[in-house]
């Protein structure tokens, strides 16, 4: 039995919600790289992890989404790659307090392979460097989130698997009229194939759309491969209120929709943009009631 199957033996796991907006509530300025707080304000980053664990997250991520050296180079921080990633894992491990698993977050490079802006060997080396730092610091698994390009995802997956940790690959289906294609045009079926062929421990979708669009994506991912499915939808659709962007779903609405994702066979469910510990608390409460009944 592989490690992920063991973790899921007692049923699906509730993961966490957004971190960036939680850090903003604690003073992160617009434009500041959230990951830099792993070194500058580790106690505030830890508060976010603690809030999710207390809300019922059984998997919490790390504040390392932008900490691959290619993405960090945009803000001159690539030299801090190891330090930011190690600190991110240590902070989440402390916040988890033995009650939640720590899956380390890896985001895309932000550059397109297809246009030659970045070369395959550079991409692979960048992900290998981040993954090695996360693994050395003791992450339980690695999660590649918000991926668009199946080629980049395949390179990241191969690099991350060298650590020996389980690797989850999650795509952002934010394009096309039905919100079922990634920015580069990949379908859930193509995403599932890349994940399965590359030896991923799970495949998933995050960001892109609200929970209502995710049930169909969940079904398509499950039909296209044998892997467990990881889902983190946004809190509904963005709406503008007083020149600020807010997401439309309330924690209760979100939890109700997320329950349908569990019913559709998702193994890991949490939230992306617009979600907070309140959303996870509402979801954990409903899911808990469901399991005990």
């Amino acid at each position, binding site marked *: 039995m592989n490690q992920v199957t063991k973790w899921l033996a007692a049923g699906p796991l509730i993961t966490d919600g957004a971190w*960036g*907006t939680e850090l*903003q509530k604690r003073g992160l*300025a*617009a*434009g500041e790289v959230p990951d830099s707080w792993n070194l500058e304000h580790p106690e505030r980053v830890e508060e976010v992890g603690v809030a999710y664990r207390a809300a019922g997250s059984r998997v919490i991520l790390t504040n390392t989404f932008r900490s691959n050296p290619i993405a960090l180079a*945009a*803000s001159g921080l690539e030299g801090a790659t190891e330090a930011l990633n190690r600190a991110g894992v240590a902070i989440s491990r402390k916040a988890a307090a033995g009650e939640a698993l720590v899956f380390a977050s890896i985001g895309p490079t*932000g550059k*397109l392979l*297809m*246009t030659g802006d970045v070369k395959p060997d550079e991409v692979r080396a960048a992900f290998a460097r981040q993954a090695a730092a996360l693994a050395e610091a003791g992450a339980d698994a690695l999660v590649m989130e918000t991926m668009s*390009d199946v080629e980049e995802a395949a390179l990241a997956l191969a690099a991350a698997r060298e650590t020996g940790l389980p690797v989850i690959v999650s795509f952002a289906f*934010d*394009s*096309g*009229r039905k919100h079922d*294609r*990634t*920015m*580069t*045009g990949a379908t859930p079926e193509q995403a599932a194939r890349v994940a399965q062929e590359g030896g991923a421990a799970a495949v998933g979708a995050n960001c892109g759309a609200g929970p209502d669009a995710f049930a169909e994506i969940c079904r398509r991912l499950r039909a296209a491969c044998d892997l467990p499915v990881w889902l983190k939808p946004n809190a509904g659709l*963005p709406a*503008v209120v007083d*020149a*600020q*962007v807010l997401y439309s779903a309330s924690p209760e609405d979100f939890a109700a929709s997320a329950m349908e994702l569990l019913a559709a066979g998702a193994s890991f469910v949490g939230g992306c*943009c617009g979600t907070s510990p309140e959303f996870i608390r509402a979801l954990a409460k409903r899911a808990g009631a469901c399991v005990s009944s």
Partner: protein
Amino acid sequence: MGEFGGLYDAILNGDQKASVALTRQALEEGLDPLDLIHRYMIPAMDEAGKRFECEDFFVPELLLAARAMKGALELLRPRLAASGAQPAGRVVIGTVKGDLHDIGKNLVSSMLEGGGFEVTDLGADVPAERFVEAVQKTGAQIVCLSALLTVTMPSMKTTIEAFRQAGIRDRIKVLIGGAPVTEQYAREIGADGYGANANVAVALARQIVAAS
């Protein structure tokens, strides 16, 4: 399609090497630059745009086509300038302060260049005052602002406010775009238009120039 139909294919397929080589060859053989643009290059970009609309092309394919078009146009530009041809219009573009995302902005920038606009691309994380300076320096009629994060969208409003304070708001049209941006947001912050994708942005820029 005639003897240089390969130029149409090279642009549509995003093959910049081929589009540049064919354009060079066409010029050596004495073909008219404007003829090349209207017979092969613009139809190829129009087709790329159509394929994008019907979800046959996605962002990377469109970006490659726009780059192939740009490579060919750069060879033609000195001849067009010598013959007195003016650019379709002047545009200043950038991702607003606090936001480092540039894939969408690069696409709009390339598509505008492909459409014959003279584009000043300020890059990402651009403070309001740099947009103001660039408009003053280039005399641009159109400013395109991009943001991919809900938290950096307010920088669009700040930038429009900076144009007002510099006394140049009435001289320009401001178009905004980016994944979380909406038509409603454009109205709320007093922008002149919202482009849901790169195709729409180019169409809006053309409308603005035609109306001015």
